């Protein structure tokens, strides 16, 4: 007969021991692989990544209350203007919050940058694009076949972006 207190202690020990007892397995980080896709709103229609022009695509995940996200937005806008790659900015917030973003951000989000809004629950979308931890800003560069060839957690630099786009153009 196990007393209630003993049972509690056993459960507690089992709970603590669990994480140490199971073997850790190492898997290679997911990259490249199958063509990625999404179906997100631009405020007027649902846009599928697969329906966009087949060229190198910079996909940036951001929020307006994330300072590094806001800082890198002009660089992404310049990249979009210079071409030939296209830039998709996915706001992980409600359209209302985007509309209230600082003026500089709204100016950068004008075409040719394509502004989309993420789903209400964005973790599936983020994980699909290789960001299971949900850290922002997060940028993925896709080749023309929509396969990941570079990704960056944190603010991007012009050097990193140019190098990534150049590399993705060759794949």
């Amino acid at each position, binding site marked *: 007969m196990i007393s209630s207190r003993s049972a509690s*202690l056993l*459960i*507690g*020990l089992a*709970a*603590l021991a*669990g*994480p*140490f007892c199971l*073997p*850790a*397995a190492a898997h*290679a*980080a997911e990259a490249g692989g199958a063509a990625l896709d*999404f*179906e*997100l*709103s*631009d*405020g*007027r*229609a*649902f846009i599928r990544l697969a329906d966009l022009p087949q060229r190198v695509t910079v996909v940036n995940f951001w*929020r307006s*209350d*994330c*300072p*590094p*996200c806001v800082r890198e937005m002009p660089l992404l806008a310049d990249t979009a203007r210079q071409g030939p790659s296209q830039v998709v900015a996915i706001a*992980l*917030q*409600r*359209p*209302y*919050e985007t509309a*209230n973003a600082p003026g500089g951000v709204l100016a950068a989000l004008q075409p040719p940058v394509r502004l989309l809004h993420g*789903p*209400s*629950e*964005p*973790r*599936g979308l*983020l*994980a699909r694009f290789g960001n*299971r*931890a*949900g*850290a*922002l*800003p997060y940028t993925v560069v896709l080749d023309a076949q929509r396969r990941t060839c*570079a*990704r*960056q*957690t*944190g*603010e991007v630099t012009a050097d*990193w972006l140019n*190098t*990534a786009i150049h*590399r993705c153009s060759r794949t």
Partner: protein
Amino acid sequence: MNTHALRPLAAALALAFALPALADKQLGDVTVSSGRSVGAKPVLRDEIVATESIGARELEKTGATMLTEALDKRPGISVQTECSICNVRNVVLNNLPGRYTTLLIDGIPIFSSVSTAYGLDSVNLGGIERIDISRGAGSSLIAPEALAGSVNIVTRRPLKDEFMANQQFGSFGQWNTDLFGAKTFAGGALTANFSHNQHDTVDGDGNGVSEYTGFKRNMGGLGFFVDDIGGFKLRGRLDVVEEKRMGGAMGTDYSGVKASMSGNPFDWSKGRNGSPDRNGWIDPSTGTVIPYTDGRGGMSEIIFTDRQQFISSATRKLGEGSLRFAVGYAKHKQDSFYEGSYYKADQTQYYLEASTQQPLGATLVTAGTTYRYEDLSSVGSAYDNTTGVSTVNDGIDNYKYRTPGVFLQAYRALLDGVVELNGSVRYDQHNIFGGITSPRLNVLWNHSHELNSRFAIGRGFRAPTSFFEQDHGILATTRIVRNIKEAETSDNLSYALSYAGDRMAFVGSLNYNRIKNMALLDSGATDPVSGQPITLFTSAHKPVTVVGGDLTVTYKLTPQLETTAAVEHFKYRFSEMGTLAFARPETRAYLRLDYEAGPWTGMLRGTWTGPMDLDKFYGTDRYNFDGTRKLSKSPSYWVVDLRGEYRLNKQWSTFLGIDNVFDFKQSDKESMLWVDGTGSFDVTNIWGPNRGRFIYGGVKFTL
């Protein structure tokens, strides 16, 4: 290939560098969003503990002006009104009694007995980022008494200077003013907020006795955020609350009502199954009329509340992990008048915490210690309406609890993050109930990027209090005999399956809760030796079990329109009256539409509540004022709310809303007042809305 992806352990560490209770924080140049929900729905946050999150924007969209309104009408979460003339409102998780829900602010538990009775309406919503709700015993590592779950209010660190003013006017004299300001400086920010909220008493059936309690409430708060002080990231908040509420008699003539203890100002013939005589009600045992002669005061409850509360936490990097200190303090005073009796309570609470989170190999370990102190000191007098004499009864429910505790938690991701485990155990040394161990195990299994499962098994404990609010009758007894030896304990098992796609998301959860030693107050006992009336404070002999499940599906119909459908179903197993003291439905269903396009935002919400087995919860000894039996089963009903907002420009918005559009209220079907077989009245026959259609509108200004 240039890849840089945060692994689960790294993400957990990142979260550790921010305050543990604050998942969405700046970490150098990275904001860890934890897959934060950005939508209108309470969907699971991407944490190992299933957590439903309600953002500040969602609070606005529902028109909520207080915490209890913000949390109501959600699957597995609701607000229970426990008294028709004082409107004690509790947050109910998994349909367990509201006292088993623990409220935290930035992860610091600073509410208990007195403050959860009337305090939840007075929680300041100014400057908050979101409200996280975790269902299940032990869902909070630092609040083992949360037998049903926890509600954590997370404050927001402003990144720029802000000013917000919100002015709302509504039916029934409702008036709500919210002001919030923030000033940022290099390395920190200061915030200030003020809120005034008032509402008239509402009498739906015309008998002169309110079903909705009137109130006037003022709340002020100051917050501070310092990003680096000796390596610590510091934040804190001071809140002050002052509230007056009165129900029963209409209006706000508090002193006049207290002085009115004779005559009959009410019309007992009004309302459904009203008495044949306006001056009293039928005694079911004799069929004769019992005249009411106790004036306005004899049917009224008046509660004045004063509360000061301070919380602060400091976090810094320590080695490869983090170090955290937290403090909390609350002083809560309640000055009450209950149908002639007086009760004044003074409660003090302290909370201290020191903890560290460190990686040990591939495992993230959190260890810490807490010290909790709370006391209650009361003075009171019981009014005898047959003699008109008051008897002093000071300190009848006094208590003093000291609870030092330690906790240990281990987190590890396996199979490249496909499976995540989180095991924890607490040990608390309670000064009355002794040592208590509370274990918990959580497992997150990512089936795919979009689909995952969460399993949780855990135990919590709560040191029960004999707090007056659970039974006003204790004041009329000479003492409380404490025949209670063990704390209340809850065993909880839960499973949740969630899917997060681009247009569709769903969450389904199953919950099993079994509460042992549920505390009971019986103020109808008699001392076998002296013959004096006493209160017995005992534990239920048999466990109370509540088992249920819920399913929520959200689908984006068009880029502008999103719909949510949800259903919950619960079963209640209990045999002792007074354990589950308030009726809960077996089934509820929810349907919601959210519209957002350009400057327009709209919300339409329908909540269907199924029948409640009133005899099971309230017993059969309940009668209307005309002597007929009360309903055995409540009718099912819909409550429909809608709200629209138009943004005039970046600074100005205007909004209009209607709650309970079709004006369904319980008093149209059955009074919340009732009498027992001997003709004694009570105010707790509650199963439906206590207020009908409520129309409100206002403007919002933001800088």
